[in-house]
């Protein structure tokens, strides 16, 4: 029996359940407290900064020796803009850090910060993406005429022909509000100065420790070896904690400058003002369809509001260029034209958030299919059936190669399970009673396990993607696995232990996974983009396989047989088909203490492996059933089905948890959450009273079904699964709302589809809801 595939409970949990987790704020109470003074306006010139007498306050002038954060894409259409650690001369978004205060404790720092007066001459702000693109719009950065920071364009030669021959051309425009990843633990860091060595240890709530070390060392002009970055327990990230933020560089600067320990624990308001946001996209697409519903081509104009800066290391290209490359999704069509722009505005920087562009591009394709189906008089499931990719490997119009998946099969499994006939009958019956229920489907691909080729294709100067894993068995037979990935709630340590246990024939409890410490782990790229199980998992498996070979060699020598005759299981190295065996721990002991006997192994039991895959595509079909109250405009979700194919499931319990959590965030995107700025660029949603993550009352039970395509594209057979829930759910929910409201012909939905917005649409359709 293997450990892979078991719903093993997580090794991470007992400490967290007992209140013995160790988050950054749990470690920082003896350090001096840092508070940032932030811009109260979205745009303007700094005229002066008044500092209370004797207070420990620093501004850009003190940081003159530092460099701005300025990530690069090596493309002619990219405009690099720098983000200074503290604002220099001008501010470009509300909440931008202008000064930093060091106090005895948090309360003292906050009191001092309130006495720092920043005199700013405000200028008009550019907030909305289309306003920023308008002729004559005020420029946010001198480097970026027209406010465009990056622009991807392509057009296949047959596109015009496809539109000329189309039986129907369907044009739609989709819009997503701005969302915050809103991890329950905000950002925070503790920078500890070691007077003996001059080194600083930055313990911070981050997803990408090695990258952070490089980035901070670069902007501060210090040696990387003088900095250690540790990610302790991290209270959720979802992408928000993967970028280099100025606050962390300032902390390290302060620790070195003041030669003392300093800590910054962000509050929720700051997190909304200055961490990072995502979504805020407007996608206009035209689809050319044949009379039988076949999609011939797409022409797309995609606009992403990227905020005031470009996030490091992935840059502001992350959303527009992902949309550019991946819009075709699970559909097989040849002709594609696209213009995808990243537009800078006087708003908080955008950075990756679970799904990155794919919630919007899935919404776009899935709304297009539904609208086209209605226009052509085809069943929505049938139009998808005709267009889904069925032959693999498939090459998309943008050159992406899709590995085997189950786009059609997953959809048909969902169709079966949801009971379409029964639903339609119920829908009709309820409509007669004045109640409006609807069913929405969404089929999508989730590209995951992006190795260096995928990022290099974006022309990133810093190209993430590979993972190195170091696997060491100690003389007592226990294993340490050192990874560059940096899990923060995903249960990766348990899943990797399962992988290693199977390779080495030991219990997963004998495997310890070490992550999140640049002093203790190989250089790697942290945890983001559903990469950890695929890439760190792949490298772990490869390293463990090599280690297993060494153990077999040692055992074979001691048992005087050929290594091929040895199998590793149940903690034993056994000679196959005999009852002769040796405890693996004894083999380990021998490898260290009698190494002269095993010249081929070298001393000890340790091996490493590198894995850098080309990438893989998971796929899923989501189905939502909703009821819309046409009186209030309120939407409730009564059923939610996910049919998911993420290849081999290492720990199905963890996979289901990822899906359920992702779907909840997708539902939030569809119905509830929106970061709102007013026209002057003031943030109107800076608390959980205004920004509304759903609770247990809004999120339905999620029914999850798995399919398992064994893809040759990954060494473990596992495909990424972290983001799919968030990617597919918005489209399913919006399609369901549109289905519910189909008697009124309501199609132009916007996210989040709040009661206000739905009432507005009903009013325009001539229905008068209450209020």
């Amino acid at each position, binding site marked *: 029996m293997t450990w892979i595939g078991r719903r093993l*409970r*997580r090794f*991470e*949990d*007992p400490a*967290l*359940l*007992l*209140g*013995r*987790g*160790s*988050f950054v*704020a*749990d470690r920082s*109470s003896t350090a001096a407290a840092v508070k940032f003074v932030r811009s109260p306006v979205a745009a303007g010139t700094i005229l002066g900064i008044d500092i209370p007498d004797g207070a420990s306050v620093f501004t850009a002038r003190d940081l003159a020796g530092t460099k701005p954060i300025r990530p690069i894409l090596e493309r002619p259409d990219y405009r690099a803009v720098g983000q200074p650690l503290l604002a220099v001369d001008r501010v470009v978004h509300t909440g931008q850090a202008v000064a930093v205060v060091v106090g005895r404790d*948090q*309360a003292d720092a906050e*009191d001092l910060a309130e006495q720092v007066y920043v005199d700013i001459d405000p200028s008009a702000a550019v907030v909305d993406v289309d306003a920023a693109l308008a002729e004559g719009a005020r420029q946010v950065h001198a480097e970026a005429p027209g406010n465009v920071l990056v622009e991807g364009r392509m057009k296949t030669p047959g596109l015009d022909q496809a539109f000329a021959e189309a039986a129907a051309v369907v044009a739609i425009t989709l819009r997503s509000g701005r969302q915050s*990843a*809103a*991890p*329950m*633990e*905000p950002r925070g860091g503790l920078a500890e100065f070691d007077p003996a060595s001059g080194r600083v240890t930055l313990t911070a709530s981050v997803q990408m420790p090695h990258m952070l070390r490089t980035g901070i060392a670069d902007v501060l002009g210090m040696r990387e070896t003088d900095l250690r970055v540790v990610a302790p*327990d*991290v*209270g*959720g990230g*979802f992408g928000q904690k993967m970028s280099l933020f100025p606050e962390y560089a300032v902390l390290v600067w302060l620790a070195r400058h003041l030669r003392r320990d300093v800590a910054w624990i962000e*509050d*929720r308001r700051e997190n909304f003002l200055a961490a990072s946001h995502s979504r805020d996209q407007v996608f206009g697409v035209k689809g050319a369809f044949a009379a039988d519903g076949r999609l011939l081509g797409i022409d797309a104009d995609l606009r992403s509001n990227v905020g005031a800066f470009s996030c490091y290391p992935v840059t502001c290209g992350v959303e527009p260029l992902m949309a550019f490359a991946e819009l075709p999704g699970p559909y097989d069509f040849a002709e594609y034209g696209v213009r995808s722009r990243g537009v800078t505005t006087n708003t908080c920087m955008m950075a990756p958030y679970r799904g990155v562009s794919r919630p919007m591009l899935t919404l776009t394709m899935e709304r297009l299919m539904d609208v086209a189906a209605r226009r052509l008089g085809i069943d929505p499931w049938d139009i998808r059936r005709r267009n889904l990719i069925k032959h693999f490997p498939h090459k998309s119009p943008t050159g992406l190669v899709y590995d085997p998946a189950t786009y059609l099969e997953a959809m048909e499994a969902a169709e079966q399970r949801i009971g379409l006939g029964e639903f339609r009958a119920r829908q009709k019956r309820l409509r007669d009673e004045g109640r409006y229920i609807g069913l929405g489907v969404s089929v999508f691909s989730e590209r995951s396990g992006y190795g260096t080729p995928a990022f290099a294709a974006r022309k990133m100067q810093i190209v993430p993607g590979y993972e190195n894993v170091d696997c060491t068995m100690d003389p007592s037979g226990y294993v340490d696995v050192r990874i560059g990935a940096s899990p*923060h*709630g*995903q*249960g990766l340590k348990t899943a990797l232990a399962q992988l290693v246990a199977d390779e080495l024939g030991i219990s997963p409890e004998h495997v310890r996974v070490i992550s999140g410490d640049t002093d203790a782990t190989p250089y790697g790229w942290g945890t983001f983009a559903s990469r950890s199980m695929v890439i760190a998992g792949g490298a772990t498996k490869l390293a463990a396989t090599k280690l297993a070979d060494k153990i077999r060699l040692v055992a074979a020598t001691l048992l005087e047989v050929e290594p091929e005759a040895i199998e590793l299981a149940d903690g034993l190295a056994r000679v196959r088909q005999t009852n002769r065996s040796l405890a693996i721990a004894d083999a380990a002991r021998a490898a260290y203490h009698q190494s002269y006997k095993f010249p081929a192994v070298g001393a000890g039991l340790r091996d490493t492996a590198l894995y850098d895959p080309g990438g893989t595509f998971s796929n899923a079909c989501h189905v939502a059933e909703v009821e819309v109250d046409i009186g209030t405009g309120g939407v409730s979700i009564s059923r939610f089905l996910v049919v998911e194919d993420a290849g081999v499931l290492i720990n199905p*319990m*963890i996979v*289901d*948890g990822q899906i*359920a*959590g*992702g*779907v*909840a*965030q997708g539902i939030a995107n569809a119905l509830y959450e929106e970061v709102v700025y007013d026209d002057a660029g003031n943030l109107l949603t800076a*608390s*959980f*009273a205004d920004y509304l*993550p759903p*609770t*247990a*009352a*809004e*999120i339905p*039970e*999620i029914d999850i079904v798995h399919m398992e395509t064994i893809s040759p594209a990954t060494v473990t057979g596992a495909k990424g699964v972290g983001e799919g*829930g968030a990617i597919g759910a918005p489209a399913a929910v919006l399609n369901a709302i549109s289905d519910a409201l189909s008697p009124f012909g309501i199609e132009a939905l916007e996210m989040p589809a709040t009661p206000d917005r739905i009432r507005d649409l009903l009013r325009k359709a001539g229905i008068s809801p209450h209020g």
Partner: protein
Amino acid sequence: MAESRTFTLNINGKAHTVNAAPRKSLADVLREDCGLTGTHVGCEHGVCGACTVLVDGKPVRSCLMFGVQAEGAEIRTVEGLAAADGSLHPLQQAFWEHHGLQCGFCTPGFLMLAVGALEENPDMSDDDIRDLLSSNLCRCTGYQNIVKSVRVAAAQMRGQARS
């Protein structure tokens, strides 16, 4: 700023004498002055519930209460849930078995919220449980495994109450 005050809190059955400013929240006093960092702070404005503790048996947002106000009350935090021999409380065990946590940041708040309610009434229906749990936020789990964990623990606590 007001002077610090010395006061004594009864936490998990133990007396903690602290010297803290009157304006300091109970959450901060627990975390910084009593070294009980299992209680987490996620918003400091009373919405997320990560800071939930029991004060005289009732779930309370410890970020919305001053430490000094808790003088004389019986306070319970996540650190006091497990038995003296270290074995997990049925709720903790259920969260572990049913994957009721991912990052674990919200977990102490959910545990204290649920334990307070279940001790008062282990006979909660599924709807009651959902309703109760909707007072706290979790960003990772999508809630269903939290609901399931509480449901399982409730059944167990009912059993214990009867035996």
